[in-house]
């Protein structure tokens, strides 16, 4: 069905249609030179459809044709997604570069999967069996996983397998099974299928409460403000506080099966860093290149803004697909503020009544439904899969009292607030231990982490007092508390991101170090004067810092641990 353009304003096109229009369906605006620009119906009034165009609208004219489709904006799912670098609409960027060179040419779209590549398919279902959508028909090896080929998620009801391909080599377009539905209708199954990005993909028996800790190997996160598999968290922070660095390091070290990076409206340079470095980096858990467990969705700030809005959904859908396979998936969205701004731009063009800071009134519900796509699910056969979502937020002026941060805080399970003061003091990660929180239970006993948190709060109070009354006016007891708080901050909460050992601490080692540090913190040193107190704490800090740099169970590690134990045994009394 076709329509005609009646208005163009920025990336918004209004078209008059002469038939059925489906909300959120795909349309193509055809420029007079024949180039077809992908767009999406976002509002319908009478015979008019408002479309957001995913490209620059330069050159579109009144009266130009719009081709309306029935299907909603979708992604293609199948083997070969891992290791890819896509734009926000799932066009593989390396292939676009091969065809179009340096620039992203409007109107050029490429299939998301390599249709010529052959995959080794092994059937697991048998002819005559009854299956439903999401059930496994067979599998192909993809990287380190068995990629399950499933009954298309869109299909409703039960089907009988009439035919299934024998083990062998197939492309994603080859038929691998024929299913018959209740009415005797035959349907062909290939290894690829489509799913609309804005609809959550979640075909499971039930959703479970997320409880398994997800180790990121960042000590302040895992020990103090943990995240769990299937949980959600956010990282708000002013510019330069290290949001992206933290996300990059998490994408390397997180103990999950698949990582999806959605670079949404951020610098292209950062994506380049990831995509040049990841193929070279080896995942210590698998021995393979990190890229083999990663998918990058890059919609950088200079790319069209409507595609930025979709890129987050594209990334989420790919993540949900791998969750359907029973894997643990981590989605890192950087930055959700740019995604929210894309909504704001569009809302403004639609002349909707604005909410706070001109964001649309539905901002909060959109944020909520995005994070709600995370979760642990259990399938009929008892397997489980999880999707964890971590989003950065870039609040204007670094002020957390703004709609995107506030809307996010309401729905996430953990909050890692970055502070300008900490990043200026070159403390990495700049997560503020006093403001941040997590509703999850991690690898450390909550009672223990509550204890050190109390110490940090108390230490901060003493420090503030000290700026007024000076060191002389502070009691030795208070002074010791401040020193202990600093010691914990310096030796545990901060990490050297550039050091191989200190930069990534596995969960097991975190437990050991945390307990040791707690022993020190709980010591009653019985100091009588401040110079002695400072000297003693400098000494133990030095031991711990070097211990953090020593490879686990190395000679140096054991040696330093011995010295620490010696210190604890001689310097104070346990209380």
């Amino acid at each position, binding site marked *: 069905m076709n329509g005609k353009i*009646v*208005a*163009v*304003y920025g990336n918004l096109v209004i078209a008059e249609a002469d038939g059925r229009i489906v909300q959120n369906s795909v349309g193509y605006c055809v420029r*007079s030179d024949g180039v077809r620009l992908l767009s999406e119906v976002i509002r319908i009034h009478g015979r008019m459809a408002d479309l957001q165009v995913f490209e*620059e*609208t*330069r*050159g*579109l*004219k*009144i*009266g130009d044709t719009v081709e309306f489709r029935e299907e909603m904006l979708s992604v293609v799912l199948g083997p070969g997604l891992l290791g890819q*670098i896509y734009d926000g609409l799932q066009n593989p*960027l*390396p292939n*676009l*570069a091969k065809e*179009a*060179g*340096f*620039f*992203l*040419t*409007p109107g050029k779209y490429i299939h998301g999967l390599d249709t010529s590549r052959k995959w080794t398919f092994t059937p697991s279902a048998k002819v005559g069996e009854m299956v439903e959508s999401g059930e496994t028909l067979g599998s192909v090896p993809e990287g380190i996983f068995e990629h399950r080929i499933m009954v298309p998620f869109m299909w409703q009801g039960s089907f009988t397998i009439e035919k299934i391909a024998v083990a062998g080599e197939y492309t994603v377009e080859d038929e691998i099974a024929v299913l018959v539905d209740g009415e005797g209708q035959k349907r062909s199954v290939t290894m690829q299928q489509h799913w609309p990005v804005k609809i959550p993909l979640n075909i499971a028996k039930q959703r479970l409460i997320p409880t398994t800790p997800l180790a990121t190997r960042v000590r302040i996160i895992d020990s103090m403000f943990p995240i769990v598999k299937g949980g959600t968290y956010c990282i708000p922070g*002013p*510019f*330069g506080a290290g949001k992206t660095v933290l996300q990059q390091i998490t994408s390397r070290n997180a103990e999950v099966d698949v990582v999806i990076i959605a670079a949404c*409206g951020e*610098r*292209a*340079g950062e*994506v*380049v*860093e990831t*995509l*040049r470095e990841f193929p070279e980096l080896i995942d210590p858990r698998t021995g393979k290149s990190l890229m083999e467990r990663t998918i990058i969705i*890059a919609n*950088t*700030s*200079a*790319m069209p*803004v409507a595609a930025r809005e979709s890129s987050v959904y594209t990334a989420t859908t790919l993540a949900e697909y791998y969750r359907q396979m029973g894997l643990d998936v981590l989605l890192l969205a950087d930055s959700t503020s*740019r995604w929210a*701004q894309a909504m*704001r*731009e569009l809302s*403004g063009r639609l002349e909707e009544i*604005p909410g706070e*800071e*001109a*964001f649309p009134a539905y901002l909060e519900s959109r944020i909520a439904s995005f994070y709600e796509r995370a979760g642990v699910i259990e399938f009929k056969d008892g397997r489980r899969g999880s999707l964890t979502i971590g989003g950065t937020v*870039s609040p*204007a*002026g*670094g*002020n957390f009292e703004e709609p995107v941060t506030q809307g996010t805080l309401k729905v996430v399970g953990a909050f890692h607030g970055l502070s300008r003061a900490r990043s*200026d003091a070159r403390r990495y990660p700049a997560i503020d231990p006093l403001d941040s929180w997590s509703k999850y239970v991690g690898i450390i006993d909550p009672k223990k982490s509550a204890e050190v948190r109390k110490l940090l709060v108390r230490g901060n109070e003493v420090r503030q007092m000290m700026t007024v009354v*000076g060191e002389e006016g502070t009691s030795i007891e208070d002074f010791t508390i401040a020193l202990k708080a600093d010691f914990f901050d310096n030796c545990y909460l901060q990490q050297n991101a550039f050091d191989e050992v200190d930069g990534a601490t596995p969960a097991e080692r975190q437990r050991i170090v945390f307990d040791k540090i707690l022993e020190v913190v709980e010591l009653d040193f019985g100091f009588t004067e401040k110079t002695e107190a400072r000297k003693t704490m400098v000494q133990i800090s030095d031991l711990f810092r070097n211990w953090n740099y020593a490879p686990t169970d190395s000679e140096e590690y054991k040696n330093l641990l011995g010295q620490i134990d010696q210190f604890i045994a001689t310097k104070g009394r346990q209380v």
Partner: protein
Amino acid sequence: MRKYFDEITRIAGNVVTVKADNVGYDELAVISSSRGSSLAQVIRLEGNQVSLQVFSGTQGVSTGDKVRFLHKPMQVPFTDELLGRIFDGSGRPRDGRGEVQGEQVDIGSPAVNPVMREMPNKMVETGIPMIDVFNSLVESQKIPIFSVAGEPYNDLLARIGLQAKADIIILGGMGLRHDDYLKFRKTFEDGGVLGRTIMFINTAADPVVEALLVPDLCLAAGEQFALQGKKVLVLLTDMTAFADALKEISIILEQIPSNRGYPGDLYTQMAKRYEKAVDFDGAGSMTLLTCVTMPGDDVTHPVPDNTGYITEGQFYLRHGRIEPFGSLSRLKQQVNGKTRDDHRAIMDACIQLYALCRETREKRDMGFEMSEWDRKLLKYGQAFESKIMDLSVNIPLFSALDRCWEILAECFEPAETGIRRTIIEKHWPAQKVGS
């Protein structure tokens, strides 16, 4: 055949609405009025109502004036003849010489495919120690100078332009004071680089809409040179004027403002320009240095704030010096590890000691007693400010590193600097060792 449309239905601010057909979005038009003719750009199509943003303003435009559409977007000619030339915000010569003929290139080209970008890895030496030593500038970096009115930010920009050893320098002025424009021209002339400079200048007296085009013109021309393998340096001043022009237009178009009157797409508009900075995989590069004046010295103002999220760091220019705290080059790690083995150590030590010096000064001002160590820090602070931080200091990187060592040796014992023993042994000025 030339077709004119003369049914102008609305004139408001710099926007004229005319009844017309067969008009493409974003294309150019010419409005001929009693004041002469001006270029205009299509910014909205609604049925047969075409809204145009008039570059030279709508003063004197009448409902009887004629509009002719050019059926092409704004373009810039690309040829070596651009070198040494000066244009206004509409791309017309302002140096009294003739029009430039050459291949026409559309401005506002699509984004560069990220996989065709190279990792930035080449340092740009500026001769300014606060940049070279402490926050190295890197080829293809996009970085602003955050400053306030009254600071010599344009002088600094011109100096970097002169000393950065770029193949091509492109200067874009937005709302530039005429004096500043002449000063830039004189600096480049005296420095002998005018022959490889292109200027697009919109002065404060020129129409504000033209300020909007300046970055696009500069970047479109620069991009073409970069594609030919040239190292291009683009200087834009002042991006706050650009943002204010955006604000003005969006208010006229009755867009809902998001923050202090600025449009909701301020981030996108600025990012689109800044992201043009690039190191092409297999071609040249474009480095982008801008000035952002912060109204009221407030870094949370929407313009510097959004800029900070877009750019790869920032230089704070305050009291005539590049402030070591807050200034940041996000790309410095890519280059400062391979200049000289002491570069990073000097960078960290000098800044940490200077931070301690500032604390000591506070203590001194509050009347606390100064210890021996405090006096060392005070001495160091003064030497560091006059021999390194001062903007008039103009020395190559290695000399700057040597000078830092000298200052450290004058003020401290080796161990007090916190620098690793191995580096100290190699670089500590000889006559001072063990003294």
